[in-house]
């Protein structure tokens, strides 16, 4: 687990859970399901292409993600999933 991730994870928030998002950029086909159906609008598509010419998602609003993993459930390419991590408040 990279330091960057951990840094994000420990940000103080008023909710109990926070999400950690993993994206397999090369597996993503840019369908946008994850972005659209994230209940909190936490994701956006990159403007960059992956090798196949698709725009993968990234956690644009990390504070909004609660790790519900709906993005993971929607993804037809198994390219994204989340971890729920407990956050002390």
């Amino acid at each position: 687990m990279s330091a960057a991730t951990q840094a994000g994870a420990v940000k103080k928030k008023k909710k109990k859970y926070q999400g950690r998002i993993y994206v397999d950029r090369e597996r993503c086909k840019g369908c946008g399901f994850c972005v659209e159906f994230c209940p909190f609008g936490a994701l956006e598509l990159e403007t960059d292409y992956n090798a196949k010419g698709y725009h993968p998602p990234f956690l644009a609003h990390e504070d909004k993600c609660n790790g519900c993993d709906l993005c993971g459930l929607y993804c037809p390419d198994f390219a994204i999933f989340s971890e729920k991590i407990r956050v002390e408040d």
Partner: protein
Amino acid sequence: MTTQVAEANTPINPVEPFLRMDRMPHIWCPGCGIGTTVNCFARALTSSGYDLDKVAIVSGIGCTGRVAGYLNLDSFHTTHGRAIPFATGLKLANPELKVVVYSGDGDLIAIGGNHLIHAARRNIDITVVCVNNMLYGMTGGQVGPATPNTAIASTAPYGAFEQPFNLPFLADSCGAVYVARWTSYHVRQMTRAMREAMAKPGFSFIEIVAPCPTLYQRRNRLGDGLDAMKYYKQRSTRKDGASTRDVDIDFQGDIVVGKFIDRERPTFLQAMNHRFTERLGSRYTPYPTGLED
């Protein structure tokens, strides 16, 4: 930030153990709904707690027919239309197996229609997941038995004009014990339905309406997979227990979703044991049904 490119030391996607990762990426197009259903199926398996060594999956031929090949189970990619009779042989020869048939509308209801109605009638103890993308994906988007009227397809270039099947009604009329419909938008409900159907003794049938952006959406100028998902979200109405007679789907019309049928009747093997025992008495040793506990 919490976005992270998967690396050796990152946790793996929880569905990976259910998938043959050595075969990824899969063949499905961007925005194809099949992958979403598989994602849900993997999670239904997780939460069901079955011994996965005892779950077998059988597909016919088609885009959806490739599902068997991606699931990390004993998996059978058979011939077009014949997944159900293959599954019948598999299940009857080893009732201990949980057998799921996973295939497309063309496979299960066009060429395979006869097997579907007979397996439902016999109440063979299998679960059938039918991904209904309303046409033949694999072969390039031909009209099929679930294509709604006026929709364009490669062999209906001026729009389909045959009335499509109302699949839940058909399955119901043949005696399926569990009949539900969801769309690929309904990921949580679909996951639960899959779990319920697998737990249900007898022939269970789940229709999942899903987008084929490459062929159906594009030819009909309906945008991409995401547009289809938005349409499902907008136009689906949940009506559990709705009369199956009333759940037709029109071109871009309302979609009634929900669990329509959930009834009890003896499975093929239960009925067989009952009959033979009644007739042959002690000369007959009951055959395992997979439902003993």
